């Protein structure tokens, strides 16, 4: 049976770390997309260089959670709180990697100009940043309505991504020389769409935390 005071303090620490990871992911995605819009390689490089912080925070969460399981033998919702912290931190770590991949696209552009000003990618990215914020907030407040909203927003992102692929495909048909950049932009869309999927996973974890049942918000 957990020693409540120490246990609650450690749970508070897990919440703080997950919040910090969420903030980091949002900032990384925002900077990565901005770096692409403005072809700012210094900004992109900073995103790539800072990714290690997410890994550190994930490891810390694994350490605290493992220690709690070993020493306090939590049950029921207390146990789910830790299982969910592991799962969410792993999703956030992957989201950080994907934001880093977007920044790497900027680095791969190697000074070439954009074939057109970016419209869909920043719009998708805005929605995905909000989804990430909502997913973390739904975890902090144990709010399943907000968790479901994240799942619904994911459908919108998937829809935008499909539209973007069609448009890029069309562009490539008409401008074969832009092929390499079209491919990079396509990948960028894919990375952002994958971040949205992980935010949706976080929503699912929140529903599991609150209800003990695993929903599928990702279809």
């Amino acid at each position: 049976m957990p020693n409540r005071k120490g246990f609650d303090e450690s749970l508070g620490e897990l919440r703080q770390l997950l919040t910090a990871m969420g903030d980091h992911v949002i900032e990384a995605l925002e900077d990565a997309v901005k770096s692409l819009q403005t072809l700012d390689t210094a900004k992109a490089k900073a995103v790539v260089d800072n990714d290690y912080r997410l890994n550190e925070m994930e490891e810390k969460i694994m350490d605290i959670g493992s220690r709690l399981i070993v020493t306090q033998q939590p049950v029921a919702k207390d146990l789910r709180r830790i299982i969910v912290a592991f799962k969410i931190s792993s999703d956030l770590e992957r989201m950080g990697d994907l934001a880093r991949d977007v920044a790497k696209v900027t680095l791969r552009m190697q000074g070439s100009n954009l074939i057109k000003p970016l419209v869909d990618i920043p719009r998708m990215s805005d929605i995905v940043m909000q989804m990430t914020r909502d997913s973390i907030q739904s975890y902090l407040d144990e709010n399943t309505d907000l968790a479901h909203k994240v799942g619904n927003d994911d459908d919108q992102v998937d829809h935008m991504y499909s539209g973007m692929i069609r448009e890029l495909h069309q562009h490539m048909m008409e401008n074969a020389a832009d092929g390499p950049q079209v491919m990079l932009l396509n990948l960028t869309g894919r990375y952002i769409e994958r971040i949205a999927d992980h935010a949706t996973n976080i929503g699912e974890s929140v529903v599991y935390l609150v209800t003990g049942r695993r929903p599928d918000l990702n279809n």
Partner: protein
Amino acid sequence: MSDIIRIEELNLYYEKHHALKNIGLTIQEKAVTAFIGPSGCGKSTLLRTLNRMNDMIPGTRIEGKVEIAGSDIYGDEVEVEDLRQQVGMVFQQPNPFPKSIYENVAYGPRLQGITSKSQLNEIVERSLRQSALWEEVKDYLKKSALSLSGGQQQRLCIARAIASQPDILLMDEATSALDPISTLKIEELTQDLKKDYTIVMVTHNMHQAARISDQTAFFLNGEVVESTDTTEMFSNPTDSRTEDYISGRFG
């Protein structure tokens, strides 16, 4: 799995104290059922109603029904000795008789009228084997039971209880006075014994309930708050009082 014990609208009073309040509970045959709850919640009292141990406490009054294998154990025609043969019990402190290991186990069968030496030998060996003690004591059956370690004494008490071939084995905090290794042996033993017996245990160790029971009932202030599959109870209890108790928020 079928139910072997059916408790309906059971109320128990010690003088004016209402110790069990309107208990309704069924217990599955050949499974381990754990009763958990804070001190004074009624779990041991309910356990003792299952073999009428409370009858010995003056001022006890019982209303309602306890059926074992379809018969009301508080019915007029019930002989308490027969009931206790059918429902054996192991207590918190090992309580072997100050007799040899052999005589401790043969005691019940002798009371039941078995006198054949070979039959008694067979029962003693089978019971000691079932309680995972045979290998440790087979060469010392004439030694005093009191020379055994606490954990061995408790397994001897289990052997003594099952020598009478009960249907049900009640365990009232049967490992709380034992060291972790002895506790582990008794826990493993329950998993073997449940193939042949129905086990109902009271435990203060919630993780023990989580480890070894199939069903768990949570008691609070003389009432059953929640009774369900153990996995469900410890992963997703439906009542917030159960969650609070198993998570250490009170009790």
